[in-house]
């Protein structure tokens, strides 16, 4: 079973992928909830445009998304250079860039799941809360948010899974640097490009499957618990 043991480089790719995906999921979550809420509840001019922009990464070739990120967040690009000078945040050829690419690619899935759950919330409960003295902020925090928790959870799992598998946009935007931007898919891709890399590719594939399954099972268990809490005696 020695062939199953991961080499230090492979471990590094696994760790990096987990790190990047967790960051991509958590950092985009507040924006995801906010945008899902706006899209579910507000009517404004240009709503379909915003909706289209959010969904764009889902339909564009990932390479195109990665190239667009390069054009906007590269070190000499407008937003990229501004962020570097103002807060010292650099995306290009860093793990942060990988996280950004993953977040953008996963964002539509997250927003979709959360938006659906917000639309399913009974508006009457929120009206009841307001007659009890809760202002809009507290209604959201104490009623809406707890009720959409399963949807948020589903959105996070989807986003995490998508981030773990993201390849095209990441490799275009931040390349494939071992230890910095070489995520699991990039590492598998690299293995398939060199002679004798089959076992490495297989090992990382098994790791990918394990992580995906674990995430799925964890989300199922959490959703069951939330559901039980809501309907338990």
């Amino acid at each position, binding site marked *: 079973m020695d062939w199953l043991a991961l080499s230090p480089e492979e471990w590094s790719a696994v760790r990096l992928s987990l790190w990047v995906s967790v960051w991509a999921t958590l950092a985009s979550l507040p924006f995801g909830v906010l945008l899902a809420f706006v899209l579910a509840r507000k009517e404004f001019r240009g709503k379909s445009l915003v909706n289209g922009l959010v969904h764009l990464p889902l339909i564009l070739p990932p390479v195109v998304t990665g190239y667009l990120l390069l054009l906007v967040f590269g070190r000499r690009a407008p937003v990229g250079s501004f962020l570097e000078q103002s807060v010292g945040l650099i995306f290009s050829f860093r793990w942060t860039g990988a996280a950004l690419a993953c977040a953008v690619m996963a964002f539509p899935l997250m927003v979709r799941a959360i938006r659906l759950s917000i639309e399913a919330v009974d508006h009457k409960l929120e009206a009841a809360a307001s007659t009890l003295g809760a202002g809009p902020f507290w209604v959201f925090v104490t*009623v809406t948010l707890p009720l959409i928790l399963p949807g948020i959870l589903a959105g996070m799992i989807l986003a995490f899974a998508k981030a773990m598998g993201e390849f095209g946009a990441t490799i275009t935007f931040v390349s494939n640097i071992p230890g910095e931007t070489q995520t699991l898919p990039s590492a598998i891709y690299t293995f398939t490009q060199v002679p004798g890399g089959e076992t490495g590719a297989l090992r990382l594939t098994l790791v990918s499957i394990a992580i995906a399954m674990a995430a799925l099972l964890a989300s199922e268990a959490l959703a069951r618990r939330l559901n039980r*809490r809501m309907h338990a005696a």
Partner: protein
Amino acid sequence: MSLQVDVRHHAGSFGLDMCFENQDGLLALFGPSGSGKTTLVNLIAGLAKPRAGRISVDGAVLVDVKEGVFVPPHKRRVGYVFQDPRLFPHLTVLQNLRYGEWFTPSSERYASLHQVVDLLGIRHLLARRPAHLSGGEKQRVAIGRALLASPRLILMDEPLAALDDARKAEILPYIEQLRDELRVPIVYVSHSVAEVSRLASHVILMRDGQVTAQGPVETVLTHGDLLPLGEKGEAGSILHLVVQAHDHAYHLTELQSAGGNWFLPLLNAPVGARIKIRVRARDVTLALQRPVQASALNIQEGHVASVALHSGPDATVAVAVGGEHLHASVTRRSVDELALRPGVPVFALVKSVTLGR
């Protein structure tokens, strides 16, 4: 409490134009479905904005369109018990009850958890989640939740409509206690004469968004022609009587009245207690002489106070008995044959009495 309402509003094809004022007690908004009762209550709660007009409670303006005032619902301190209980499913009963309390400054709280929990008999439910309560239990918790926010006024929008008769009977006494013991001003929406006559001190009859009649419950509910179609037969009188004696052999309770004592199935009330009864006009027969050898126990002696002729075959005769009026639904033909005119002495035979408490 004084509630002043003068609003105009449009909801779809439907127009609402209401102007009324109410002092203490329980005000019933009474009318058929689609008459605008819920819309009006939503305007008072702040869940909808009127197109024009003004609403104030105890002098505090809640909305004044001309002045550009609109107090949002969470700052109105107007409680709301909805037709569906709308309990928060993710919170326990206790957390639901405390929800509004948390948003009320402690200086303005008048309802305490223990008092409310005991009043509504929900102590054994506190740790449960709403999903595991019966319909009646849910509605009691919803009433408690509204009460614990210490509102200036509680709106109840047909809180019993979704419940069966047994559950209704279970909740009515609690609403009476709210009214009598905590003295919370209540605006109660209903389309049931039985509920209104039992609970309300004042009634506003509504139809198509307009006030058709308003006043004390004793006078308004005599207008059978104004009541909703299905409830026309429920029109009648409300009388206040005092328990005089209990007859355990015949299982009857005797109630004192100037026009002759009443006999009701044995009541669980002490001698001397004041009792409210409701007599439907269609259950009252009139005779010019005291009927002899008749089975009716309840025969009231009085004289005709007024006669109202309706467009169909019917007429409503008000009979003055003591200081109160007993209404009888008779045919116009009988009015002519018996020559019923104000002042004529008559005997009223009552076939059935509903307890109004």
